[in-house]
């Protein structure tokens, strides 16, 4: 299983998205995003914004990073703390 997390405004668009997806070979964040497009087109459009960063097991990675079983994948909009 791969755990999916959506922070900030992305969380509003991700309502109804399953918190976990099945792991399979050759999975990447880009493929996971595209997989979400069928049922959640608005979320997919938000995830495609250039400012959105992704982290894999809490490390910032690129969209083509391999995603393995047991990973935690988070989608991060621009931060606004402080």
């Amino acid at each position, binding site marked *: 299983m791969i755990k999916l997390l959506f922070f*900030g*405004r992305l969380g509003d668009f991700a309502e109804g998205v399953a918190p976990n997806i099945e792991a399979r070979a050759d999975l990447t964040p880009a493929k996971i995003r595209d997989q979400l497009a069928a049922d959640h087109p608005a979320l997919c459009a938000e995830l495609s914004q250039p400012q959105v960063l992704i982290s894999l097991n809490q490390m910032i990675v690129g969209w083509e990073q391999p995603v393995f079983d047991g990973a935690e994948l988070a989608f991060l*909009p*621009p*931060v606004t*703390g402080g």
Partner: protein
Amino acid sequence: MKPSIRIQTEDFDLGAEYQLLRQLDAASGAIVTFTGLVRDLEKDSSINSLTLQHYPGMTESLLQEIVDQAAARWDLIGLTVIHRVGKLLPSDQIVFVGVASQHRADAFEAAQSVMDYLKTKATFWKKVDQDGQQHWVESKDSDRAASQRWTTDD
């Protein structure tokens, strides 16, 4: 250098944090503290409350990186970062950065750099309630520019 990084829902006591920094080492000649507050306005409209979300685990790691960078660049004795999460009201304290150093220049610059990086790197997100309508705060170009000045100086 003694770092202290805390993410908490409860308020903090500026005086107590100052004393903790002051007691670290008698070599300290300067303590700079910064406290950020919740403004009552967002885009010229008053707010009822602010809710802060963060990414537990990752936020602490990112703050540690920011603190480590400051410790490598300036001569520091202590560096405290406190960030509150959860629901806050106008005038509430939201963030604290305190730096103890032998000399004031290091303390001033380190405190400003930590705040600038915190605002653009640390995984916090603000949601405001304005007249019952909730919306996420947009990031600011001015914050990104502020953090970039610490990289272009080198």
